[in-house]
């Protein structure tokens, strides 16, 4: 009996000791991780932490109903597209309502939006709205005055009875409009400023599956008719960087390239030099499937964040395709989402629009996230020495961070500290740069020791020659004697 009582008290004590650190550590409702060289998910510090959520009620304009998209303009205004209510809510950076646009005047008549699903603002603060059910793109001034409307395009390229159902919209600096439309498999639709249809960019290629090909070969026409068509997938969202490159996401299950960076002629030029594909989760349970990206945000300095709707995670990559960090999740707490719809950046903060909850979640970078961002930005601008200080701080927070080792290695290589660089590249498993550093180090060592080596060799040869002559002479002397 006493043994049992003793066991119970032990259990109680162990429960208590488990609970105490548990409550202290529960600051993020999600577990952050990153993939290492061996493609294992290793725990990492959270890069961003949720600070608050913003709902329509809090703003005093009534609940958001199914908000579909959000965009932060260059001047720091947040434009929320409240699709269910058919309105645009403009907020300033201290979360006060600047104005609400729910209608506009067109040719003397008041018109409204019907289930709009995409919004974008250009650098002149003009608002572009993909007014989905009205089949048009509406361009408004910041005050909500109509500038122009892009409607059903006329072109020989388009099939008969083509329905223009715009979903997402982006504008480049030359005011060309890029539109992702429903049922368009040819790529992203591109429009001139005045609304004339220019053509498609970035067609997704259909990959031939040889298994399917084999079945098609042996099946009858009736069976073939029942098979699904091999059509490319549609794009799901897009964004544009300062140089005019369009970043686009597509939901192509099984694809290694769900994120594309399209150059002006429509080719995919995204750099994928990381250890694994730029495809979100590379390791997942079958039940939750591969990542499905529904939004992408260009963060500047080559970085971009993509929003995965299946697991509610935000994946951020650098310009060469290294996964920097992952955060977010599906759930009910602050910081996790029901149906995430859009990711944006406001200063250093990241905003995620949750369609399901009708709220915007504001994330603040942690020390880890800040240091990673700073390091990547400095490295992108070619300032490796500055970046090194940030990478060192990153390593103090996360010693498993391969990119930090590589970053420090690059800085050391730049400074000519080849031997130290070797160590860092090996820690970061970067064989290519290791080879470069090793080549320099080897040359350095050889240069340093070449003199010693040469004098030692000359000395040896001389000694041998002396030995030979002495022996020879001795032999001759013996012979003579």
């Amino acid at each position, binding site marked *: 009996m006493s043994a049992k009582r003793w066991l119970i008290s032990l259990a109680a004590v162990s429960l208590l000791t488990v609970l105490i650190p548990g409550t202290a550590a529960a600051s993020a409702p999600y577990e952050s991780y990153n993939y290492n060289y*061996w493609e294992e998910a290793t725990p990492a510090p959270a890069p961003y932490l949720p600070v608050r959520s913003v709902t329509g009620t809090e703003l005093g304009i009534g609940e958001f109903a199914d908000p579909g998209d959000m965009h932060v303009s260059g001047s720091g205004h947040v434009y929320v597209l409240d699709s269910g209510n058919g309105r645009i809510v403009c907020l300033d950076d201290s979360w006060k309502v600047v104005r609400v646009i729910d209608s506009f005047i067109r040719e003397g008549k008041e018109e409204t939006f019907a289930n709009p699903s995409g919004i974008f603002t250009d650098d002149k603060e003009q608002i572009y709205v993909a007014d989905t059910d009205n089949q048009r793109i509406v361009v408004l001034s910041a005050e909500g005055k109509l500038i122009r409307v892009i409607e059903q395009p006329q072109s020989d390229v388009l099939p008969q009875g083509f329905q223009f159902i715009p979903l997402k919209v982006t504008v480049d600096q030359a005011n060309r409009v890029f539109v992702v439309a429903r049922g368009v498999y040819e790529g992203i639709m591109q429009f001139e400023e005045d609304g004339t249809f220019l053509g498609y960019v970035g067609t997704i290629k259909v990959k031939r599956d040889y298994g399917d090909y084999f079945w098609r070969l042996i099946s009858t026409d009736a069976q073939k008719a029942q098979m699904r068509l091999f059509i490319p997938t549609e794009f799901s969202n897009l964004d544009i960087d300062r140089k005019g490159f369009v970043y686009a996401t597509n939901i192509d299950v099984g694809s290694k390239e769900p994120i594309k960076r399209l150059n002006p002629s429509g080719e995919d030029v995204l750099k994928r030099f990381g250890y694994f594909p730029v495809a979100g989760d590379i390791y997942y349970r079958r039940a939750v499937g591969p990542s499905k990206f529904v939004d992408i945000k260009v963060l500047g300095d080559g970085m971009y964040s993509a929003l995965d709707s299946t697991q509610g995670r935000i994946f951020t990559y650098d310009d060469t395709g290294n996964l920097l960090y992952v955060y977010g999740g599906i759930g009910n707490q602050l910081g996790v989402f029901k149906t995430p719809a859009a990711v944006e950046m406001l200063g250093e903060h990241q905003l995620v629009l949750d369609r399901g909850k009708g709220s915007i979640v504001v994330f603040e970078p942690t020390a880890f996230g800040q240091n990673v961002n700073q390091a990547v930005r400095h490295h992108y601008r070619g300032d490796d020495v500055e970046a090194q200080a940030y990478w060192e701080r990153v390593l103090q927070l996360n010693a498993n961070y391969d990119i930090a080792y590589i970053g420090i290695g690059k800085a050391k290589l730049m400074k000519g500290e080849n031997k130290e660089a070797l160590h860092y590249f*090996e820690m970061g498993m970067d*064989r*290519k740069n*290791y*080879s*470069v550093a*090793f*080549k320099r180090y*080897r040359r350095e060592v050889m240069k340093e020791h070449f003199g010693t080596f040469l004098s030692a060799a000359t000395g040896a040869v001389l000694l041998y020659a002396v030995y030979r002559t002495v022996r020879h002479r001795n032999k001759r002397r013996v012979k003579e004697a």
Partner: protein
Amino acid sequence: MRQEYFKFPLHLIVHPFDGYWDLKYENRGRLGVAFSVLALVVIASIVQRQYAGFLVNFNDPRRLNSFDELLYIVLPFFLWCVSNWSVTTLMGGEGKFKEIVLASAYALIPMVLINPPMTLASRFMVQEETVFYYLLTMVATIWFIGLLFVGSMTIHQYSAGKTVLTMFLSVIVMLIIVFLGTLVFSMMQQIYTFLVNVYREIIFRQ
């Protein structure tokens, strides 16, 4: 005696027809040499996995296990000897089991001679030079296969075609042995669990 332990094996790998003939008919092979070569191959392989240069070493250091080398080298070696013996006795080969062991082990000598120096050299190589590492380790492997071929041809007194056939059959027999081995192993396990269950049944019934 030093002749048999050092000079003869080195002579054999460069003059295989001559060497294997002497090994069989002049009785110049030594089992001690054979097992030393096998042990050296194991050591060379362990060293190579652990210490080959970073640029050519793709092993996860957390998963290196020296016992695996026994599993991947020593076990297949004896499997090969047994299956080759099984096949050749049925197909009129003249080699004894001891000769098969000797011939196969002596064929491994190039691996011992080439791989350790390459492991060392790989530590001083840059990316462009690693081709030589791969090239020379490849040469070692091809040399090994060539020697194995000449070895079995000579000790069994086969024609070239028949040697290729018996080598191929030996590989299949190796697979069959592994298959039967795992079968027996799992059967034993089942018998064991059956007996344990019977025992439990009896003691719980009382």
